[in-house]
């Protein structure tokens, strides 16, 4: 049975459809990444799953039933703002979280947290605060973890360690739903769900979502000239080192724009990155390649 089962969920705020017919499933032991531009409906969908909002239409099932106080007790949540009480100590925050779920506070903490157990959260470094939130969210061994940009502001080793904790929870059977804006977090997930305009526009593994999408890589003697020429032609180029990448565009258009400006450059059509594919999906409102001219008869 899926831990989260959302089908055709809709949530309207007045005339605005924040979520407009979204499906989402998270199975035990699975880490699912939820991606989307601001306004795509991610936060609203998470709030529907958490039971903080009631859907306008469609169904939301948590552990096979509608979200309620009972389902809340089987869930661990790490909000982006962390949600700690700054004027309580580490131990008091843990006791408070455990009390809210009706369980015992965790006995074993990692060494750094243990050493800081009597410290007020207000004077705790951010890295430790984040570990404390994880300890609090995991204390009652939840069946489902919901994480909102869990590692923003953490250095790479610290981030890798937090992901060990997240994947460790999945290895023992918990399902994990992670929302993120960063590709290094998306890469840690088993499966990704991409939202745009309140709907799910792509789902699956990273490679499957990218598919055979391509990007035109431009290597010019002077990237500045090439960048300006493409910019004037309305072709958005991304700078990577000294190379330019023009995603989701026909190479002939790129060549024409550079020729017209008299800029000499080498062009290569290379596989698109996940981020490029994601941006194209979001900009096109879910129609990959919408900007790319298609040969006659292909569509």
């Amino acid at each position: 049975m899926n831990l989260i089962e959302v089908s055709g969920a809709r949530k309207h705020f007045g005339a605005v459809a924040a979520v407009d017919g979204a499906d989402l499933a998270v199975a035990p032991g699975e880490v699912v990444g939820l991606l989307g531009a601001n306004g795509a409906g991610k936060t609203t969908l998470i709030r529907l799953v958490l039971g903080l909002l009631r859907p306008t239409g469609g169904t939301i099932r948590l552990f096979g039933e509608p979200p309620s106080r009972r389902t809340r007790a089987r869930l661990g949540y790490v909000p982006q703002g962390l949600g700690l009480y700054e004027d309580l100590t580490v131990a008091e925050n843990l006791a408070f979280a455990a009390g809210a779920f009706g369980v015992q506070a965790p006995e074993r903490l990692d060494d750094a947290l243990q050493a800081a157990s009597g410290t007020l959260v207000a004077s705790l470094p951010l890295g430790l605060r984040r570990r404390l939130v994880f300890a609090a969210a995991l204390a009652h061994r939840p069946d489902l973890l919901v994480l909102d940009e869990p590692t923003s502001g953490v250095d790479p080793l610290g981030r890798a360690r937090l992901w060990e904790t997240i994947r460790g929870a999945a290895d023992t059977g918990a399902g994990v739903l992670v929302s993120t804006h960063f590709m290094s977090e998306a890469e840690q997930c088993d499966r990704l769900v991409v939202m745009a305009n309140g709907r799910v526009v792509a789902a699956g593994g990273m490679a499957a979502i990218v598919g055979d999408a391509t990007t035109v890589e431009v290597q010019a003697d002077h990237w500045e000239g090439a960048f300006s020429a493409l910019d004037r032609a309305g072709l958005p180029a991304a700078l990577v080192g000294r190379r330019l990448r023009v995603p989701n565009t026909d190479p002939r258009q790129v060549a024409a724009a550079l020729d017209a400006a008299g800029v000499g450059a080498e062009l290569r059509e290379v596989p698109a990155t996940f981020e490029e594919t994601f941006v194209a999906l979001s900009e096109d409102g879910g129609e990959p390649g919408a900007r790319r001219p298609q040969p006659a008869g292909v569509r």
Partner: protein
Amino acid sequence: MSGYGVRDLRVRYGGRTAVDGVTLDVPAGTIAALVGGDGAGKSSVLRALAGAVAPAGGSVQRPEATVIGYMPAGEAVYRDLTVEENLAFSARAYGVRGAEVARRAGELLERTGLTAARGRLGGQLSGGMRQKLALAMALLHEPELLVLDEPTTGIDPVSRAQLWRLIAGAAAAGAAVVLATSYVDEAERAATVVVLSEGRVLLAGPPEEVMAGTPGAVVDSAARLDPVASWRRGARWRTWSPDGTVPPGAERAEPDLEDSVVVAELALLRHQAEEVAA
């Protein structure tokens, strides 16, 4: 001089050392990235470069204040002013006058997708819109040195692509750009990266040189090989092998910048442990 930067910079706040001997070059027409977690010293380096804090040691090369564009982390936008008023305020502060203000403001509003929001109050914008407005404010006077403190933190990939396009456009026009980020995959796009840890330089150089200079080997495996020197990459594990040997059950992996930074952090921890033991 064609570029700016800091040499052997030290920054102190009261008794606390925030930056301890950092060197960073920002040549004109390029983008340099400062990488590190919260508290690594990124903001302090940028403040010193922008002239917002006096260094306790070392030297700072920067142009006069009127040609620096500085976007501080967090709240850089006046919440009780409209988008247009924020831009006008920035124009006055940097001495941009007359028709030039309207021309630059119009261009930047269009490029940030904020034209329709020009009459909205700063406090009513989404986080991503505020970041884009803050960048537009720093760019308005076409600065020679652009100093951006975590311009993309908390914003979505579509807005991030727009921001990067503006930043690259400034570099293409000849500005020296330095930006801070806590995300290594983002820093990989810069011409040079400087990775900070506890106020010191952990790694520095063009991304491809930093990756190529990773000591020993990075290996990939299905299971964890070491309690300390292994880290997760999705469902797989990476492990640092300092002497370059490839353990059974593992394969040599091509380290990306993220791996290189993790290895540098592990090497530093190892070094510190050895010093304690000695």
